[in-house]
């Protein structure tokens, strides 16, 4: 029987973690990005269909009334309210929570480094992420591929023009052992190809890459524009390194009506699959209506970056105490 009180990470690793996080703070203070802290508990939460927020009830003393509060899955909504109030560039190192997600690369509680840069374009923000991973974490420079480009390079098909059948037959040929009854959307299959075919190839080639210009249907909270070929693309990027997805950046959607529409269609999907619908964040929508500045923002899983920098295999190797023993 191994005892269960000991830390999950060794103390030496925790010292390195503390130093790297201090270096991250220095990196941002040198660039005049303001550190902020926003509430961990909120009455609203993201609506994304496969994102499951923890929640709890607030009950004022002496009252029977209960108000549900969600633990944040990211500090995004609160930080955007600060941006609308003219905060300028801001960053946050925040504990975030995602119910159900536990594994070698997932902890239900983890640390997010998230920042917003009103004066930077999406490509300038990629430059800044690249500076951070090189200067602070001593990792290799990050290459750039468009979503279309990386699929053409590794899979030899055009994600915008190929048929659903083309994608299905590629999956059948290249990915073994999938559930026979698997039914997914076109984006579901593309995401599966990304994580089963492209990510491992990038990892085997030791390549860190930004992938940008996603299909519009994967826009999340990013703007949608036309690319050079006239395809509708979502102005967002993801950073992949060491076989992991490390960061997700947006040229932030500023249109409150469009955002409400995306929240509502997420909640419809949730209803269809019988999962809890989520209260829409009216404060965020009001802030956007008041006017959020043109802005690029990125959320980065800090532990995954620490794993790469400290050459650790498991997310719990860089967390003081793992979720299962908390």
């Amino acid at each position, binding site marked *: 029987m191994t005892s269960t009180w000991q830390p999950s990470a060794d103390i030496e690793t925790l010292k390195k973690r503390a130093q790297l996080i201090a270096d991250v703070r220095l990196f941002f203070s040198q660039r005049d990005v303001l550190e902020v802290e926003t509430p961990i508990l909120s009455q609203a939460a993201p609506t*994304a*269909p*496969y*994102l499951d927020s923890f929640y709890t009830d607030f009950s004022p003393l002496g009252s029977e009334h209960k108000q549900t509060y969600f633990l944040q899955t990211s500090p995004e909504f609160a930080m955007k309210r600060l941006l609308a109030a003219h905060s300028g560039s801001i960053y946050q190192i925040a504990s975030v929570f995602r119910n*159900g*997600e*536990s*594994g*070698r*690369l*997932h902890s239900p509680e983890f640390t997010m480094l998230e920042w917003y840069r009103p004066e930077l374009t999406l490509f300038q923000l990629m430059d800044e992420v690249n500076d951070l991973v090189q200067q602070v974490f001593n990792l290799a420079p990050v290459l750039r591929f468009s979503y279309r480009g990386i699929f053409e390079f590794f899979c030899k098909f055009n994600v915008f023009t190929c048929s659903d059948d083309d994608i299905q037959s590629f999956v059948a040929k290249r*990915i*073994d*052992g*999938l*559930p026979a009854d*698997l039914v*997914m959307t076109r*984006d*579901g299959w*593309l*995401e*599966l190809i*990304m*994580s*089963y075919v492209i990510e491992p190839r990038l990892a085997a080639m030791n390549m860190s890459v930004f992938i940008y210009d996603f299909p519009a249907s*994967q826009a*999340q909270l990013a703007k949608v524009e036309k690319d050079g070929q006239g395809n509708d693309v979502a102005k967002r990027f993801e950073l992949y390194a060491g076989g992991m997805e490390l960061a997700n950046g947006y040229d932030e959607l500023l249109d409150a009506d469009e955002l409400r529409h995306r929240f509502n269609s997420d909640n419809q999907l949730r209803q269809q699959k019988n999962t809890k619908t989520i209260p829409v964040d009216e404060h965020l929508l009001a802030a956007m209506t008041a006017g959020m500045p043109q802005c690029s923002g990125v959320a980065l899983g800090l532990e995954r970056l620490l794993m790469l920098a400290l050459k650790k295999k498991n997310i719990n190797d860089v967390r003081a105490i793992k979720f299962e023993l908390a």
Partner: protein
Amino acid sequence: MANFSTNEFKSGLKFMLDGDPCNIIENELVKPGKGQAFNRVKYRNLKTGRVNEKTFKSGDKVEGADVMEVELEYSYTDGEFWYFMDSDTFEQHAADANAIEDCKKWLKEQYVYTVTQWNGSPLLVTAPNFVNLEVTETDPGLKGDTAGTGGKPATLETGAVVRVPLFMNVGDVLRIDTRSAEYVERAKK
């Protein structure tokens, strides 16, 4: 046998897949993009010994397999079955040719082997990582050649043929790594 949901998957879990007992080697949660979650499992089919990958939707269930690993001493063969003995209870277990196929050339009486049993009967016999075996046949040794260059084939008492340094002779006992079928060193008799 109990059912197991994907959230109970971990390495070492024995489960049934397409009628064969399997052992999970690695289990990884994958969440492609913002989509649904999967468990990507690397497993060994305990009947064939083959390693494969299978993806489960998170929340899927599998049937557990009644599989146990026991340490048994090899006794003898009658040509059809190979008999292994539990040294505590003296109970005999008969393994068929399929079960001993991979470790046949390392089978020596009184050595202890790991026997994987499914529903109580031997499914797979695994040799220890290292065994000491005597050379029964090889070209005469070359005295003075200790550099270990080149080497020559030697037949061992179990019938296995391994490459050994030139100075080895019939009657020498060698330590063999059964995973790579390679000579490691000369063992004390």
